């Protein structure tokens, strides 16, 4: 019955698509050589194509195809940056400036030439320097940047502190995309919302694909190959972004869709079907994320360090991992496990390799703090997150563990629109939550999750305290570029956090997966989950 309903809905969706293409301007998909089209099925739809004004995953998937950044994360090694619109870059000896040599002969989709002035304009706009944006979610990440200056054909990034490593990483995020200067100039004088709408309707980047049709109401985007692309004209001629929010509908594409297809965020229960299908292949990787239990050090229920340390010892990873069907592994640090800064040997104070001993030690700490029978509530998002596929089940498992050491633990779900702002106000003593990095830098974990400004915790800092020692060490660590020194610095920070703050319990690192037709070759997927088709070929 359900299958028939789905089939009917799919058929209706298909009819709808045809009629749109028939009446659309640039020629229908049905009439184009289907062999050069890839359909990309995503969970979230794109609404805004202004890279400087959004942090939404659905938008970023499309933005990534159309716009480019100066540098890019190496798909083969997350710890390395590779050239994109900048061919090389050099950090000044004092660490306070980075000079970029820019790629020559690059033009935007509107034929405007790419140069240092164009790059400066976009990077200033992103930081709201000389512009007012409707939303500037990434502007705070650039507070260490003093200015971007044009130096002939080169671009110079001047820094307030020697934090070149983090600043360079931030330039790899999609928010740092370079938009055509003609488009940006045209937005001057418009109010912020109108400016965002203008960029969305004139999405002129330098990427391998240009927008052919984009109608946020129709929730569908068609992209066509940019033959003037500096990397060469792409073999895959067209991309169709098709958002399908319903998980079971989305997975219908795994087995039923014709032609070349890519399905994003494939849930674990469908992996085996994909691998057995013969037509689809699966690419899974350890994502740059962490799922953890935030423990509020500024809340009456968890104010004593002994209680927080007891919770650190009490929560077992294995029963949590069991809920992920093999797509998660235990993790013991806040930074994502695939990153070099993760310390596989670190364990919290009082640790024993015997779970029974750990539980005993935790129960003793609870007794010492006279916290037996204390009511603690584990809050969790109502909706599944990429790092938290079954929030209620996992929260309940955590609850069981806390009960076992003498706390009267409860669980409570909250809509994510309530939960995330609630974290910022310190409402929750315990919260099951996670983090995925956009730029693969350890600072992108410890900065937002364990630090703050002027002694006040940042809005995603679930411990609700800022440890002065950690704060100082994080400022210093931003300046370290040499790998061994950087790794040692962040591992030290993690140790201090677990010993002196005990403001979180890292639980698991999870896998992420995309499935795509076996007819697609040479597709590049990086560790942040972004894919590139410019060098892909089709059978």
């Amino acid at each position: 019955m359900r299958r028939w309903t789905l089939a009917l809905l799919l058929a209706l969706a298909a009819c709808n698509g045809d009629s749109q293409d028939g009446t659309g301007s640039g020629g229908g998909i049905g009439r184009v050589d289907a062999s050069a089209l890839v359909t990309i099925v995503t969970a979230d739809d794109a609404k805004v194509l202004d890279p400087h004004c959004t942090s939404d995953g659905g938008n970023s998937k499309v933005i990534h195809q159309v716009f480019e950044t100066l540098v890019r994360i190496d798909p083969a090694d997350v710890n390395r940056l590779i050239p994109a619109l900048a061919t090389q870059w050099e950090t000044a000896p004092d660490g306070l400036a980075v000079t970029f040599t820019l790629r020559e002969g690059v033009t935007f989709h509107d034929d405007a030439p790419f140069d240092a002035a164009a790059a400066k304009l976009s990077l200033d706009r992103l930081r709201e320097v000389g512009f007012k944006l409707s939303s500037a979610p990434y502007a705070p990440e650039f507070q260490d940047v003093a200015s971007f200056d044009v130096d002939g054909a080169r671009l110079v990034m001047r820094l307030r502190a020697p934090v070149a490593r983090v600043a360079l990483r931030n330039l790899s995020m999609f928010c740092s995309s370079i938009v055509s200067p003609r488009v940006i100039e045209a937005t001057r004088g418009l109010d912020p919302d109108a400016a965002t709408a203008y960029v969305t309707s004139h999405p002129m980047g330098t990427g391998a694909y240009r927008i052919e049709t984009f109608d946020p109401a129709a929730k569908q985007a068609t992209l066509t190959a940019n033959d003037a692309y500096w990397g060469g004209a792409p073999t895959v001629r067209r991309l169709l972004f098709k958002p399908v929010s319903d998980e079971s509908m989305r997975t219908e594409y795994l087995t039923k869709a014709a032609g070349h297809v890519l399905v994003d965020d494939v849930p674990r229960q469908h992996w085996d079907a994909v691998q057995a299908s013969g037509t689809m292949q699966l690419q899974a990787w350890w994502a740059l994320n962490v799922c953890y239990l935030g423990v509020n050090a500024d809340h009456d229920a968890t104010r004593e360090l002994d209680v927080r340390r007891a919770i650190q010892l009490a929560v077992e990873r294995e029963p949590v991992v069991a809920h992920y069907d093999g797509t998660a592994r235990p993790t013991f640090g806040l930074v994502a496990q695939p990153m070099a800064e993760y310390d596989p040997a670190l364990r919290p104070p009082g640790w024993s390799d015997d779970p029974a001993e750990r539980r005993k030690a935790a129960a003793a700490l609870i007794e010492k703090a006279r916290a037996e029978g204390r009511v603690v509530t584990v809050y969790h998002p109502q909706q599944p997150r990429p790092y938290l596929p079954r929030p209620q089940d996992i929260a309940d498992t955590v609850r069981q563990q806390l009960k076992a050491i003498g706390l009267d633990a409860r669980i409570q779900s909250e809509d994510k629109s309530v939960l995330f702002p609630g974290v910022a106000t310190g409402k929750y003593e315990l919260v099951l939550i996670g983090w995925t990095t956009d730029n693969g830098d350890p600072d992108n974990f410890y900065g937002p999750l364990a630090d703050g400004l002027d002694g006040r915790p940042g809005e995603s800092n679930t411990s609700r305290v800022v440890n002065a020692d950690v704060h100082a060490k994080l400022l210093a660590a931003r300046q370290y570029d040499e790998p061994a020194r950087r790794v040692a610095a962040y591992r030290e920070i993690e140790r201090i956090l677990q010993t002196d703050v005990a403001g979180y319990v890292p639980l698991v690192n999870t896998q992420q997966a995309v499935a795509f037709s076996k007819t697609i070759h040479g597709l590049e997927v990086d560790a942040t989950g972004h894919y590139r088709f410019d060098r892909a070929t089709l059978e």
Partner: protein
Amino acid sequence: MSGGGARAVAFLRHHRPALVGTVLVALVLLTAAGGPAVIPHAPGDVFERFAEPGGSHPLGTDSQGYDLLARMVYGARTTLVIAVASMTLSLVLGTLVGAVAGFAGGVADMLLMRGVDVAMSFPSFLLAMVTVAVLGPRLENVIVAVGLVGAPVFARQVRAEVLRVVSEEYVVAARSLGLPATRVLFTHVLPNSLGPVIVLGTLGTGSAILSVAGLNFLGLGGDPYRVPEWGLILTQGWNKRPDANLQVAVAGLAIFVTVLGFNLLGDGLKDELDPRTRRR
């Protein structure tokens, strides 16, 4: 009292569906009342996850390592309590509105009954969903939602009965004796209007169980592990097929049997108590 008992026995003897319904409802009530005393585990005890049925776990364990039998037995209590509570809310609210509308008449009647018409013009389950969504996903709110949504049916029924009863001679007599309106309403009119309401209440309990289970299945009941409830047990299993096929089957069957029991019993009572069907 013995006369009533004899009448009940006679009724059940010639009305087979009602007999079946009575047995099913009695079975569920017995499980809810006495079950916890005879089963080996409490619903909060944690064991190995997805243990096979057998041994001390006749129905196996679920994804959290809870004994499924324990959760089903305790779940019977929760499910019945929620259903009866929401039904009572419907009944009290509906009876009040219906009685006032029917007894007062005029503008009050028009206003109240147009309100009831508006409430009934929405699909009731949809209305319940919206109510819980607005109030927040909690079991308490499920009771309120199902209770509110069920009230208009009672209001309409009670009003019709009250309109019939007020023209009876004993009510006219009471009024002409100069008794206060509230006394006439509560001592003479209402007690004689409640027969059909009891039928509706029994039938409504079945549909309330279904609505509660449905809302919980859709995740509107909040935390599925705080208290065991059949709809929640069904949802939890549904997301974990095929590992939890038995869980889905058991919870589904329990809901089915209970709703069937109340419906059969309600139908029987209707044939017996409803003045319209009785006179035929």
